[in-house]
């Protein structure tokens, strides 16, 4: 190699302009061209001991897939990715790379890190849009059956991995479509649903069966599953919304982020009345919260034509959302009202919200999370006029499965207690992973937990476990 290290700058990915994109639901970043991808890939130093790999929970061989891009073997690159990651087109888009693989990239010490996520997206997209997606090798059928509860990234990954190991996996999904947060939470403009569908199809082609409309705990219980399956993996996510329990919160026009995003993403309310599910037609919306879910809600409301204010009780530096998302939201004209917290909602005769009464806050001493605690400033009440409020202050575990599974241990937040390395729970033959164990986290961590659990379940099924 003749080029100097760090000579080529990190390649930007073209994206839709803020003026255009806040009027449509099309994807914002447009993807690398072949040329841009190869130029970016050429920045990778092909480290002998690649530091980047320790930041990837699904253990992708990063230099190897990047080298194949340099060599022009894009389909080969995608296959390399799929050796360890069943959903690369998703991860390339939604992984918080700056906190994972790219954080450890050696180039990042003096220059900017290699854009690993963008390259991953490029290779996966190339394979999908250029004909046949090849299947990896599948081990000889063991005849063992595993029930997977929940078809989000964790459940899909676990089922796919077990299928490759020769086991028969069946996913039981409560909604009418698998994908979890990937289909109902993360908006179309960040993760097109056609891509999720393609990745789910890939998992199906590995031999995984997906049964939709099965609410475990209602339609069928974990104990009933154990009658016909050799093991059960619970990956039900952190799907229950948190409200603030303040006055007026049940007024019309006030949504949990879950409801708002599900209406728009899963049910496609942005195409009402062509699609049957409605969503509020907002003039002025307030989003409460400062995380990724709040950004997604705000940007969604903006695309539906609203003037959007984001109300967050701490300051900008404490915002848990990714910088890139905050930046995108600002570009799209979302107004940030920082150090502000709603205390009650005002409504009209018909029961519609008309205003959010807020308090200004200042930062006090650090709290348990290490962030400075917001303290209300007395007498600072003011009212923001609104017709829509989206509460995006967090999600918690849904109790349906634990409540219907005797002996399944949970912690005080309702999360299932499971061993970090194996996913083992307090019940024999029952494993768990993803957000239901960790609380709301990331796609890639949910997938990483599934990878580890898949190995443990494989050992269990092959006889190291008690049951055989």
């Amino acid at each position, binding site marked *: 190699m003749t080029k100097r290290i760090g000579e080529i700058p990190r390649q930007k990915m073209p994206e839709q302009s803020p003026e255009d994109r806040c009027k449509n639901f099309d994807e914002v970043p447009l993807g690398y061209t072949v040329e841009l991808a190869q130029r970016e890939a050429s920045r990778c130093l092909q480290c002998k001991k690649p530091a980047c790999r320790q930041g990837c929970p699904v253990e992708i061989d990063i230099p190897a897939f990047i080298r194949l891009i340099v060599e022009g073997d894009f389909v080969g690159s995608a296959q390399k990715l799929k050796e360890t990651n069943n959903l690369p087109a998703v991860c390339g888009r939604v992984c918080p790379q700056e906190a994972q693989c790219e954080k450890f990239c050696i180039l990042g010490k003096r220059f900017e890190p290699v854009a690993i996520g963008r390259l991953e997206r490029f290779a996966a997209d190339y394979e999908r849009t250029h004909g046949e997606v090849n299947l990896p090798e599948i081990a000889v059928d063991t005849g063992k059956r595993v029930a997977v509860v929940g078809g989000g990234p964790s459940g899909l990954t676990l089922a796919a991995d077990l299928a490759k190991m020769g086991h028969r996996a069946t996913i039981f999904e409560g909604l009418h479509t698998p994908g979890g947060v990937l289909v109902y939470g993360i908006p179309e403009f960040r993760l097109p649903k056609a891509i999720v569908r393609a990745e789910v199809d890939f998992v199906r082609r590995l031999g995984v069966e997906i049964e939709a409309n099965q609410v475990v705990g209602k339609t069928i219980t974990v104990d009933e599953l154990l009658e016909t399956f050799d093991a059960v993996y619970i990956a039900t996510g952190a799907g229950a919304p948190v409200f603030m329990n303040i006055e007026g*919160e049940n007024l*019309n026009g006030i949504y949990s982020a879950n409801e708002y995003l599900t209406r728009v993403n899963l049910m496609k309310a942005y195409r009402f009345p062509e699609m049957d599910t409605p969503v509020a037609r907002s003039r002025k919306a307030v989003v409460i919260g400062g995380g990724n879910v709040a950004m997604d809600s705000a940007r969604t409301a903006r695309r539906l034509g609203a003037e959007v204010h984001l109300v967050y009780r701490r300051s900008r530096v404490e915002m848990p959302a990714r910088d890139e998302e905050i930046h995108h939201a600002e570009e799209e004209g979302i107004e940030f009202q920082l150090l502000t917290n709603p205390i009650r909602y005002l409504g009209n005769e*018909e029961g519609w919200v008309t205003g959010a009464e807020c308090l200004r806050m200042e930062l006090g001493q650090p709290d348990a999370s290490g962030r400075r605690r917001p303290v209300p400033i007395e007498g600072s009440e003011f009212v923001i006029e609104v017709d829509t409020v989206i509460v995006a202050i967090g999600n918690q575990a849904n109790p349906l499965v634990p409540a219907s599974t005797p002996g399944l241990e949970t912690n005080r937040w309702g999360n299932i207690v499971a061993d970090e390395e194996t996913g083992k729970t307090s019940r024999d033959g029952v494993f768990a992973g993803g957000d239901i164990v960790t609380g709301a986290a990331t796609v890639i961590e949910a997938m990483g937990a599934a990878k580890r659990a898949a190995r443990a379940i494989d050992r269990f099924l092959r006889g190291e476990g008690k049951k055989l």
Partner: protein
Amino acid sequence: MYPIVKKQRLAPEVLLLEVEASRIARKAEAGQFMILRVDDPGERIPLTLADWDRERGTITLIFQEVGVSTKKLGLLNEGEAISDCVGPLGHASEIGEYGTVVCIGGGVGIAPIYPVARAQRAAGNRVISIIGARNKNLLFWEDKLRAVSDEVLVTTDDGSYRRKGFVTDVLKQLVDGGEQVDIAYAIGPVVMMRAVSHLTMEYGIHTVVSLNPIMMDGTGMCGACRVTVDGETRFACVDGPEFDGHKVDFVGLMKRQQMYLGQEKEARERMGHCRAERDA
């Protein structure tokens, strides 16, 4: 897909569908509901399980054709199928040895009261069913209720059948006549459940109502179904749908049910328009 094995018109705007859904049928209990999506563009709507047959693996749904989803559902015929059915959802009714149980069904609420009456009777209670509708044509399942009740009292708002008046009038007469009622169930339009609850409050009769707020997932994931009960927010789909009628904020519920009034009207008009075009 969930095939329709039987379709029957019970009243001008009320239809019965028997649908193959063996997993739901196997678990169904009185008081529970299911959620369906008619087709791919369809929204998710909840309907109470009016009956089920565990052997045949079918469930029975009875619904009023009020808007786009229920009208679309009504257009399906035997042999055709519903895209998605999920359930059973919500808690089952609390069936116990109460003594005398009054089961009140108003309008299309006659359907969901039937399994409750049947289960309460099977538990050894004396069951008095009171059913009412606007007029004679809108009544159905009187015979089925007779088979599971010790007594059935029927009323119509306009007096076109049996007595004239509301179900509350019948209940009042019954109690004033000296009947010792230990618990009342009321299912029907919100105004009716509210009226029953007001009345039974005066008499000190514990009353259970089944709430029907707008829902989406039906599993506690979205909070669309928030209702206020005893001053607290509850999710009707997982905490209910049955609640203590004396503690429900019915006015709040009625307001929340109106949330999409504008869009619903628009969707109905659009549907009418599309059908007119198709038929032309």
